[in-house]
C-alpha cells in the first residue's frame, strides 16, 4: 500500500525535512504519526501526496512510484489519497457546500449524487447549517471540520490527516477520531499526524514517532509519552 525506503527530503535552505525514513504501511491500517513541531510529519504527508518530490530514496503509494511520477498521474493519485491539510486550504470564494462538492465534480459525479453525498458528510461533521457560508465566516474548528469532510466525501483509499483536531474541543475531537475509526473499518488506510496524546493513548493503534526528520520508534498499539 505505502512503501517508503530510505526516503530523504532536503529543502532548498539546506534543512532536512525528512532524513532516511523507511516505513511500510498495509492496506486498512490506522497509524498515528507523532513527534515534536518541525519533526517532518507534514513533509512526509506532502511527499505521499505528491506535493514535494523526495530528494533521495523511494516511495511507493498504491500503484504509483512517487520518485518518477508523471504530471498526468498526479491528479489521479490525489483522488485515491485524500488529505486533511494542517492549514485547511479551503477555496475562499466558494461556499462550504461548493468546497466539498468540488472534489466530487472533479470525479464527474452526477449532480444529484453530489448533493446527497455532501449533505451526508456535512451531517457527519455537524455543520449542515453552515453549508452556504463562505470559509471566512467559519470559526477555526468549523473550517477544520469542513476540511475533514472534503477529504472523506469521496472515500479515498488512503486518508492522510495532518493535525485534524488541533482546533477542536476535546468532545468534537473525540467524535472526529471515532469517525476516522469508522472509515478505517471500511478498509481505508488512515495516517493521522497529531499532538493529542490523550487521543493516541485512548485509541491504542500503531504509533510512528518522528524526530528531526527520522523515525525514532514504531510501535503497534503504542502510546504517546
Amino acid at each position, binding site marked *: 500500500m505505502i512503501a517508503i525506503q530510505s526516503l530523504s527530503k532536503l529543502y532548498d535552505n539546506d534543512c532536512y525535512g525528512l532524513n532516511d525514513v523507511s516505513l511500510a504501511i498495509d492496506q486498512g491500517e490506522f497509524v498515528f504519526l507523532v513527534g515534536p513541531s518541525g519533526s517532518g510529519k507534514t513533509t512526509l504527508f506532502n511527499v505521499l501526496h505528491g506535493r514535494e518530490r523526495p530528494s533521495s530514496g523511494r516511495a511507493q503509494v498504491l500503484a504509483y512510484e512517487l520518485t518518477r511520477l508523471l504530471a498526468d498521474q498526479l*491528479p489521479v493519485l*490525489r483522488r485515491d489519497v485524500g488529505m486533511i491539510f494542517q492549514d485547511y486550504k*479551503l*477555496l*475562499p*470564494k466558494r461556499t462550504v457546500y461548493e468546497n466539498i462538492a468540488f472534489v466530487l465534480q472533479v*470525479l*464527474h459525479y452526477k449532480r444529484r449524487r453530489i448533493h446527497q453525498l455532501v449533505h451526508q458528510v456535512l451531517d457527519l461533521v455537524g455543520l449542515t447549517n453552515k453549508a452556504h457560508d463562505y470559509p471566512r465566516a467559519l470559526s477555526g474548528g468549523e473550517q477544520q471540520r469542513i476540511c475533514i469532510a472534503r477529504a472523506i466525501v469521496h472515500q479515498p483509499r488512503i486518508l492522510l490527516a495532518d493535525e485534524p483536531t488541533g482546533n477542536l474541543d476535546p468532545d468534537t475531537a473525540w467524535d472526529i477520531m471515532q469517525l476516522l475509526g469508522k472509515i478505517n473499518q471500511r478498509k481505508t488506510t488512515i495516517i493521522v499526524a497529531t499532538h493529542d496524546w490523550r487521543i493516541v493513548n485512548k485509541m491504542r493503534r500503531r504509533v510512528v514517532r518522528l524526530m528531526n526528520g527520522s523515525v525514532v520508534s514504531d510501535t503497534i498499539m503504542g502510546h504517546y509519552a
Partner: protein
Amino acid sequence: MPSLFFFIREAAIGLRRSGLMTVLSLCTLAVSMLVLGFFLLFTVNVNNLADFFVSRLEIRVFFRDDITRRDKRDFHTVVQGFDTVREVEFVDKAVAWETLKQQYSGTQLTRYIDKNPLPDTMIIRVTDQTKIQAMVSKLETYTTVVDDIVYGGYITERIQLLSKWLRISGWGFNALLLLATLMIIVNTIRLTIMARHNEVEIMQLVGATRWFIRWPFVIEGFVLGVVGSTVSVVMLKFSYDAVAKYIQQQFPFMPLIFNSPILWWIYAGLFIIGTVLGVMGAYISISRTLE
C-alpha cells in the same frame, strides 16, 4: 465527463465572486480595444481623404451652359488628340448632382439648394502630371465651350507624398497599437489570474486535472473578451457615427466613410481580436500558473 454547461457555470461563479477584479480587467480590455478601434477608423478615414485628394489631381473642364451636344463632341475629339491624355470622362450635370446628393445625404446640403447648381463636366486624367499646365493653357483657348478649368498643378507630387506617408505611418502605428493592445490585455488577464493562484493550487491538491481547472478560466477569458470587445465596439460605433455626422455637417465636402463595408470589417475585426485575446490571455496565464 462534465458538460460544457458545468464549466460555464463555474466560470460565471469565478467572474461574479472576483467582482472588482473582473470589472477592472473588463474596463482595461474595453478601453484598449476602444483606442485601437478609434485609431483604425481614423486611419481609414485619413487614407480615404488622401485618396480623395490624389484622385482629384486631374483637369476638370466645366462647360458653358449655352453649348450644344455637338460642341461637346467636337471638344472631346480635340482633347483625345493630345498625346498625354490617359482617360477622358464625361459627367452629365444631372448625374453629378444625383451623386452629390447621395454622397451627402446625411447633411443639410440638399435642403437649401433645390436647383442643380452643377455644370456638365469633363474630367481629364493625364499620363504625365508635369504636362498638366501646358494642356490647361491650350484648353483655355476654347472659350466658346469652356467656362472654367480647375487642376492641381505643382502640389500634385506633394499630395501624393503626403498620402503615402500618412498611409505608411498610419498602418505602422496601427500595428504598434495592436501589439500594445495585445500586451495590455494579456497582462491584465494575467494579473487577474495570478491573484487567484492560491485557488488554483488548492484545486490541484484535491485532484483536479489541468483541463478541469483550465476550462473555467479559459471561459472566463472568453467572456471577458466578448463582453469587453462588445462594449468597445458598441461605444465605437455610436461615437464614430456621432462624430462623423458632426464633422460632415461642419465640412460638407469632407469625404468621410459612412455605411461602408470597411466599417463593418473593422467592427467585426475588433470583436474577434478582443475575443481571441481574452481566450489566449487566459489560456497562457492559467497554463503558466498550473506549472
